[in-house]
């Protein structure tokens, strides 16, 4: 008497397509006095599979996992979705968007977004009638 098994063939994640489906990576965002640091968990992704782009004020991170699968395996238990990672963020104006740096190691992406120097709070005068 055996348990019912899912007799599906595992597939490697397909490269990201414009329309998805995607996995949303878990992200931490921390702020220090000089910069914003973004950490994204993208297991299976190396620097070749990583795409980071900034358009206007939108930061988009895409990660295509490296295929790991051996041949002819039947999936018995699957908690990992076979999709690429994708997530987008709206950035504030006081960041130096051309000085963003990033690296990926052990499937963890670290992006540093420096704040613009001299970004100061502008006091807005309120006129009263």
């Amino acid at each position, binding site marked *: 008497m*055996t348990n019912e098994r899912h007799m599906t063939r*595992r597939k490697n994640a397909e490269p990201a397509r414009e329309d998805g489906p995607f996995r949303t990576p878990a992200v*931490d*965002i921390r702020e*220090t006095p000089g910069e914003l640091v973004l*950490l994204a*968990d993208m297991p299976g992704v190396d620097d070749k599979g990583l795409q980071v782009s900034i358009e206007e004020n939108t930061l988009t991170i895409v990660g295509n996992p490296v295929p790991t699968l*051996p041949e002819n395996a039947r999936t018995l238990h699957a908690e*990992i979705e076979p999709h690429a990672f994708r997530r987008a963020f709206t950035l504030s104006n006081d960041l130096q968007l051309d000085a963003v740096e990033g690296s990926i190691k052990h*499937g963890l992406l670290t992006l540093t977004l420096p704040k613009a120097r001299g970004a100061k709070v502008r006091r807005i005068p309120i006129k009263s009638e």
Partner: protein
Amino acid sequence: MSLIPWRKRDAAGSIGGLQREMNRMFDDFFGRDFAVEPFGRGGEWVPALEVSESDNAVAVKAELPGMDPKDVEVTLANGVLTIKGEKKQESETKEKNFHLVERSYGSFQRSVRLPAAVKPDAVDAKFKNGVLTVELPKAEEARTKAVKINVE
């Protein structure tokens, strides 16, 4: 002061009963054949797992992004594969404002009762890009051999 009926073993019984039932579920869980522990034992988070099987081997994959391989421990005992470890915070938390915290940290432990007998000495574990892949070759008697059945 209102009178509340006093019943022996009432509330303690109902909550204790629920706990006993959950524990029994865990034990039954490991009494059967193939099973993946759903919640992990203690620990602060649970890594996503995938288990697959081919004719010659069982493969268990775990997502452990951002971990150092030396903080991961893989053990095999009595047909149960256990993956445990601790994911440390990247840097000291000083002078930082946290805008978003979704990632998991801390200790984890998760077990899988394997679907077939394996050769303990031939188990291979690789950690690449934050994914741990454990390949467990099946023991001789467990390998699926195609048997041709003649139909009269």
